[in-house]
């Protein structure tokens, strides 16, 4: 059964994996060739993604491009792909980010003793598994990609990362695996009570008794909360983000972590509507704590990459608020936030990577007045920072605003506390920018030759599309909201939540 003549989703998933195999077997002695092949390959995937975007009918069925192939009939498990609006925008985000990351990481693997083709093969493999995770419409298949995704990321951090890479890689893997195993238990439980099938569509109608559903919800939720990560499961992210090479960190925070919030939207809410309502206060509390706590920690960081990681945790708190407010505005805002955060934080990580590559250190105290040496790069850094703090006119503003007004209509305290996060965000971003690029020039900085080279053409090509997208979606988010809105509404219908009429808005929990 397929309503598209072309199997977009399976090709999108398979293509990068094939590319990864191809690049992995290129000779180590020809690093340039591997880089070019990887770049061209990821661009081809991007083209395919854009075609899929055009072919997607925003006003059509909720799930499009559905494909299904038999896999393990004994368990009722199929290779089922299907994308709704939420999945589609995430797919496109991945397709956009990966070529830029490849281009930005052009020299990342050159200096070490490690194989260059392997690095780019791992990035492509990561792309394939990430695309698969968003395209899957069978819980089993989703779980498979969810777990396999860890392996390339583990090696990207562990083999190509910076200081403390082993520790960070193991911590990342163990945290994710623990979450994954909780989810495995829930998946098996779902299979047992849901009538021996793991097809998403069949399971949404399954009649699961309340107590069981709550346990199963928790199994999924813990996995996603670790992945996202929500407070108090967040401690792996600063380590992983701090140790990963900048490109991989951009993918880690920009996309991979979105699997958590996406999973909550796609699996937790529609499969366990009652449990979602039951646990919503808990989830909102964790999300709000995350917003404030991570922002405070971010203020105190001296390591740029760790700082950006903490800002992301705060942003994931916002997304959590948006999801669990159960209103269309907040939900759309949350999904939009997932995309915009991918662009803004992706950009921020890549720019930080450029700074760190020049300076050879990620410590804020090693910079100071860098704007005098690399004015253009410092300007880009400022733009990325402003986008990250959700300045009006940049894309994250739209989503943050939607989340807050959506939440305000149903839960004023949460919205009010979360708004304080915006102020803190302005604090940590501006202070970071000030300490690194403004003020008196750090004398040690001018002794570093690399700091004298401003933004190169390659780097300009990396940042330009991201900045353009951030501004475009800041002023005109309609193309994305049009695609996302129906999917969010369908999700809310699944859980039986209704938008409050503006006049009867109350502060009580629904």
């Amino acid at each position, binding site marked *: 059964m397929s309503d598209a003549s072309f199997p977009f989703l399976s090709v999108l998933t398979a293509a990068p994996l094939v590319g990864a195999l191809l690049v992995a077997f290129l000779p180590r002695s020809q690093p340039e060739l591997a880089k070019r092949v990887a770049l061209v390959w990821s661009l081809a995937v991007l083209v395919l993604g854009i075609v899929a975007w055009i072919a997607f009918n925003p006003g059509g069925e909720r799930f499009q491009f559905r494909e299904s192939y038999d896999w393990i*009939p004994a368990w009722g498990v199929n290779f089922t792909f299907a994308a709704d609006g939420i999945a589609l925008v995430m797919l496109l985000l991945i397709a956009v980010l990966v070529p830029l990351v490849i281009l930005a990481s052009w020299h990342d693997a050159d200096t070490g003793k490690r194989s260059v083709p392997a690095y780019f093969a791992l990035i492509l493999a990561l792309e394939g598994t990430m695309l698969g995770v968003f395209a899957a419409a069978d819980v089993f298949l989703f779980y498979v990609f969810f*777990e396999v995704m860890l*392996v390339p990321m583990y090696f990207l951090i562990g083999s190509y990362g910076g200081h403390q890479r082993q520790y960070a890689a193991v911590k990342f893997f163990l945290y994710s695996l623990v979450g994954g195993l909780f989810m495995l238990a829930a998946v098996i439980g779902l299979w047992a009570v849901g009538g021996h099938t793991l097809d998403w569509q069949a399971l949404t109608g399954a009649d699961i008794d309340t107590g069981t559903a709550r346990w199963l919800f928790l199994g999924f939720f813990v996995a996603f909360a670790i992945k996202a990560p929500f407070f108090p499961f967040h401690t792996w992210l600063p380590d992983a983000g701090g140790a990963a090479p900048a490109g991989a960190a951009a993918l880690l925070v920009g996309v991979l972590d979105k699997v958590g919030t996406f999973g909550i939207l796609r699996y937790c809410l529609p499969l366990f509507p009652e449990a979602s309502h039951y646990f919503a206060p808990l989830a909102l509390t964790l999300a709000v704590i995350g917003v404030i706590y991570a922002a405070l920690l971010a203020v105190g960081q001296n390591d740029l990459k760790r700082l950006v990681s903490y800002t992301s945790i705060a942003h994931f708190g916002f997304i959590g608020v948006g999801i669990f407010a159960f209103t269309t505005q907040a939900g759309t805002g949350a999904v939009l936030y997932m995309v915009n955060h991918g662009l803004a934080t992706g950009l921020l990580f890549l720019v930080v990577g450029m700074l760190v590559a020049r300076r050879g250190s990620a410590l804020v105290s090693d910079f100071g007045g860098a704007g005098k040496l690399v004015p253009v790069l410092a300007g880009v850094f400022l733009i990325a920072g402003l986008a990250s703090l959700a300045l009006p006119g940049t894309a994250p503003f739209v989503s943050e605003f939607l989340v807050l007004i959506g939440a305000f209509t149903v839960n004023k305290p949460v919205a009010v506390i979360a708004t304080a996060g915006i102020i803190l965000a302005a604090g940590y971003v501006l202070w970071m920018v000030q300490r690194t690029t403004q003020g008196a020039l750090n004398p040690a900085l001018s002794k570093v030759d690399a700091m004298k080279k401003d933004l190169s053409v390659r780097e300009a090509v990396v940042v330009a599309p991201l900045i353009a997208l951030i501004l475009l979606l800041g002023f005109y988010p309609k193309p994305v909201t049009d695609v996302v809105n129906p999917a969010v509404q369908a999700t809310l219908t699944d859980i039986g939540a209704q938008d409050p009429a503006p006049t009867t808005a109350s502060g009580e929990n629904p």
Partner: protein
Amino acid sequence: MEDLQLPHIDYAALAPMLILFGAACAGILVEAVVPRGRRYPIQLGLGLAALVAAGVAVIVQASTRIITAGGAIAVDGPTLFLQGSIIALGVVALLFVGERSLETGGPFVAQAAVVVGSEPDRLQAARRPGATEVYPLMLFAIGGMQLFVAANDLLTMFVALEVFSLPLYLMCALARRRRLLSQEAALKYFLLGSYSSAFFLFGIALIYGYAGRVDFAGIHDAAFNADRHDALLYGGFALLSIGLLFKAAAAPFHVWTPDVYQGAPTPVTGFMAACTKVAAFGALLRVLYVGFDRASWDYRPVLGVVAILTMLVGAVLAVTQTDLKRLLAYSSIANAGYLLVGVLAMSKDGLSSSMFYLVAYGFAVLAAFGILTLVRDADGEANHLARWAGLGRRSPLFAAAFTFILLAFAGIPLTSGFTSKFAVFAAALDGGQTWLVVAGVVTSMVLAFPYLRVVVMMWLSEPAESTPTVSIPGALTSTGLTIGVAATLLLGLVPAPLLDLSSKAAEFVR
């Protein structure tokens, strides 16, 4: 005087066992009459031919479902499936046993009776080809295992137990290097093994006292109908289980496992980890499902505790290991726990998923021990974890293969480890054993850590001064490794055919 009636014997149904025992006897004759130099190719060829012939005999019998030899032997679906598995795993194990290109004369001592450390010992260690008695011993062991899984009464089962155990005790003592360790292992295995045999035998006596019969159908009929006291039944069953759980390496009867796995020649360890496990669980399944199914309400909680203890002991102690063979031994203990989870589902699914697990685990563990035989230094195999540092850089292919096997043990999707764990956990949850599944998932989290540590060692650590070399494997080991790794991958990607086969075979005759 009444005429003695000879029981009818269906020779075709017994063909696999007859072929193997016949070939084993022929192998002893070869030892007696063929000159030493020519024995190796003849024995190896004879062994492989016998296994292939027995495999063909199993396939020809595929649809046989009878009880023959006066009720002593049942040839039914599980029997044939398990016999086929033991043969398939036995072929791979024989390939490792037969390898002679890794060190002069192969992994076995030339003359086990030579005093350790004496002048003749040094001579034989350096030059002389290994003992070829190993091959008939191995055929006897495999034949005994075939009988063990087919035994339809307790006495036949006991005979089979001894037939396959005695050759194993001997094989453990035949290591060419570190002979004292090897002899100690053999003695330990022998003493504890005979102790457990005594338990088994005593259990038979009690059960005979209760039921008046030793065949499983008779025990089934007698359970709760006999006029004897139930204590006889429970006592007998408990003693019987001890004997079987000892062979299966379940806690608290596991203490022999690490020492024996470490001391035995590595190919023999692989053989034990794969084939003995199949045989032990095959027999356990028959005892529980055919003989004592009416008492399942009474023993399920007790065996459930054993399963949890086994998983815990295996997982927790694996974390502390620094020797790879011991690490794999504890991992094999934990896996015995996972198998027990499947067994205790007490359903058709439980039976078929346990059988699937046995095959999947068998191939993976054989490949793991196969790779251990390759990593060597001047003193033979280098099994200490620290010695494996940086191996990934020296021989990426083998390190990648080992990493893949470790990921399979950790239960990462797209490996057989994941599908098999999913199978047993799903069956157990369907059978209402939620607590076992939760324990299984939690211990899987713990167990992931030691595996990950090995991966970190191989890929992320810097090579030490004296990193051992990875020998180029001969044709036999290469073939064995390829089969093991390919089976692990295939059963992870397309488990459906074997799942179908195991579920078709999952019906005992009584």
